């Protein structure tokens, strides 16, 4: 019985939140890795792109909520999501035309691209703060919990409860659908194959008549879609704060590099590894061990490896470990 309690506790505080967080990171890292693979640079504006799409979705959600439209028990934000994605795609394509295309045609150094993306980040960050303001915004509605801790306790008779938020289930299911669609697109369709070919060997792809502008456009469309979905899911699960997206950049980059640059499967794997390590390392295991130990015994300290303040350190340590041990990532990607 105590083992069961310990497992439920672990699931409630580690497995469930980390799975949802991992799915959000994976979607973000997929965007980074696609831009790495196709445009070949580290996109520092990716966080702001996520933020931008989320902001558009939030504005539309508020509008819908004011109109009384909704799809309860699901959050209204899901209804607004498609248009938010369109807004993010528009923003991504506009920046590509206005900014990145020039350097692409010049075949500029990837570092120049990265610096330019810092400029894009500034502009987007400013616009977002002007439009929606720098503060916390809540936009989640609909049912909050799928399984409540108390109900779980009553049904199973265990001491520990397992709570699953609706946003967590939505996150995971949407992530699964999106990833499946993405892989179908990359593996089966003509455009997807063109993208893979272009990512693999640009010159050969050009030689076989693949239109580079088309590939790049598709890459931006997919990236903006994934970024918006990731941002909205993160916002539903936690909260929307404009400045959080610059901080999310680090775990997302860590996930992309850990998985192998330019490798979609790797990005997903990386997202979950980063999320699980972050949550597991910062979780206090005191109660968990007291269930496993003899009756009435509890460990002295919190049995927490690292305080939650340092969760960003976890992605950094992962990053450093990858750079030292296997710079190509889990699935061999490019060494950029």
């Amino acid at each position, binding site marked *: 019985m105590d083992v069961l309690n310990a497992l439920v506790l672990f699931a409630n505080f580690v497995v469930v939140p980390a799975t949802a967080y991992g799915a959000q990171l994976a979607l973000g890292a997929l965007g980074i890795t696609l831009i790495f693979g196709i445009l070949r*640079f*580290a996109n*520092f504006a990716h966080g702001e792109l996520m933020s931008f799409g989320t902001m558009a979705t939030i504005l539309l959600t508020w509008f819908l909520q004011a109109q009384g439209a909704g799809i309860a028990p699901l959050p209204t934000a899901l209804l607004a999501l498609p248009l938010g994605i369109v807004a993010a795609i528009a923003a991504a394509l506009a920046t590509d035309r206005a*900014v990145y295309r*020039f350097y692409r045609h010049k075949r500029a150094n*990837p*570092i*120049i691209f*990265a*610096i*330019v993306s*810092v*400029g*894009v*980040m*500034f*502009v*987007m*960050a*400013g*616009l977002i*703060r*002007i*439009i929606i*303001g*720098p503060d916390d915004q809540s936009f989640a509605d609909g049912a909050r919990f799928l399984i409540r801790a108390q109900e779980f306790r009553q049904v199973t008779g265990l001491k520990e409860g397992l709570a699953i938020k609706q946003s967590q289930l939505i996150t995971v299911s949407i992530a699964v659908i999106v990833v499946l669609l993405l892989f179908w697109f990359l593996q089966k369709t003509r455009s997807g194959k063109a993208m893979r070919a272009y990512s693999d060997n640009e010159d050969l792809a050009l030689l076989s008549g693949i239109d580079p502008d088309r590939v790049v456009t598709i890459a931006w469309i997919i990236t903006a879609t994934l970024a918006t979905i990731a941002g909205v899911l993160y916002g539903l699960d936690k909260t929307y704060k404009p*400045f959080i997206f*610059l*901080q999310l*950049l*680090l775990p997302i*980059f*860590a996930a992309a*590099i850990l998985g192998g640059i330019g490798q979609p499967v790797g990005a997903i794997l990386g997202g979950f590894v980063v999320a699980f390590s972050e949550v597991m390392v910062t979780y206090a295991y005191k109660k968990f061990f007291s269930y496993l130990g003899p009756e009435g015994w509890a460990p002295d*300290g919190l049995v927490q*490896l690292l*305080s939650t*303040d*340092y969760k*960003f*350190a976890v*992605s*950094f340590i992962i*990053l*450093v470990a990858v*750079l*030292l*041990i296997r*710079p190509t990532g889990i699935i061999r990607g490019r*060494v*950029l």
Partner: protein
Amino acid sequence: MKRRGVFYFSVMAALLLAVGLGQSWNVALGIINLCLISAIMALGVNMQWGYAGLFNVGIMGFTALGGLTAVLVSMPPVTEAWSAGGRGIALAFLSLVATVVAIIIARRLVPPLFKIWITIVIVILGFLLIRVFYEPAVEQIEAINPAHTGYLGGFNLPIVLSWFLGGVVAAGAAWLIGKISLGLRADYLAIATLGISEIIIAVLKYEEWLSRGVKNVTGLPRPVPYEVDLMAADWFINLTAWFHADVTDAASIFVKLCYAGLFLIMLAAIMWLAERALRSPWGRMMRAIRDNRDAANAMGKDVTWRHLQVFVLGCAVCGIAGAMLTTLDGQLTPSSYIPLRYTFLIWVMVIIGGSGNNWGAVLGGFIIWFLWIEAEPLGNWLMRMITLFMEDGFWLKDHLIAGAAYTRLVLMGAILLVVMRFAPKGLIPEK
């Protein structure tokens, strides 16, 4: 070429003069002091980017390390805290050293296959050992008079010393991070530095025994006189009478002038060294590596080692600037370190000024800091113009005016993009 630089610097001087005459000399000197510090930071980044083509996105972290050094050097030690937890902290530090030494020795002894595993095992053991000493010590230190101290304090030395030590500390951190990520290609350095800077800020925020965390350390000793003392001094009152100036204003201006003098000396010294380095064989070699890495490598230059050198030097300069900044503020506020202001703004300075040219970096520091400050009234004015036709009390009008402060972010991004596109060599190009 030279005339161009002189022209831009004269324009800049005229702008600052205009602020002095139009707004007040206090404001103008406030801007100048931060311009001088920004110029030093820009010089540091220019060494990395302009000399060697390294993309460092962790400037904030190295600046913050300089700031921390200023506190540790200048504040009086908290003796009770030292006697309560000093031993524990020292033992924890020794354990850290022992762990590192053990890893190095173990990695030499075991066959390559087990290297990773032995490292992981020693890291975990060392981590547990450190925590045994560390946690009780931290608790004891933070328990002592938490409202006023609750940290170890510093060494009660003159704060100007921290300007040099700040550079040394930042250089140490840079060496560590450079050792790991240099040698791979440039994007990795960028991401690794982004990470280390976030961690440094996290340490400053949450390690209260070291930096008081978000409770901030205030009242750092100054290298220049205090306004209150000046206002009471006879010679100063006579001096202000000579100028027919208000004593309070004059005292504030005098203090700022003293700072400006000190900062100017630092800037001149670093500038002189940077120019000497750039013109030496070492500088030519760095540029050769930047322009054609493979060719330089073929000539027998150790590219990674040279990159590490210049990376450490640049970060040291940023650390110096960070210590100076904390000195000027008189306090360390870890929560004020945000990457847009402390990392990416410095990048805009270097790019606009002219990467590879030290004078350009200094000019960029001045222009961008000036704009960063003056963008606020500018943004307000712009928003008022946009909303002129709207009625008072209309929600969009209030909203836009409330967001006016953020036009500076848009402005900075736009400047960076325009310069990168149309004048990638910056205002004063490299020769």
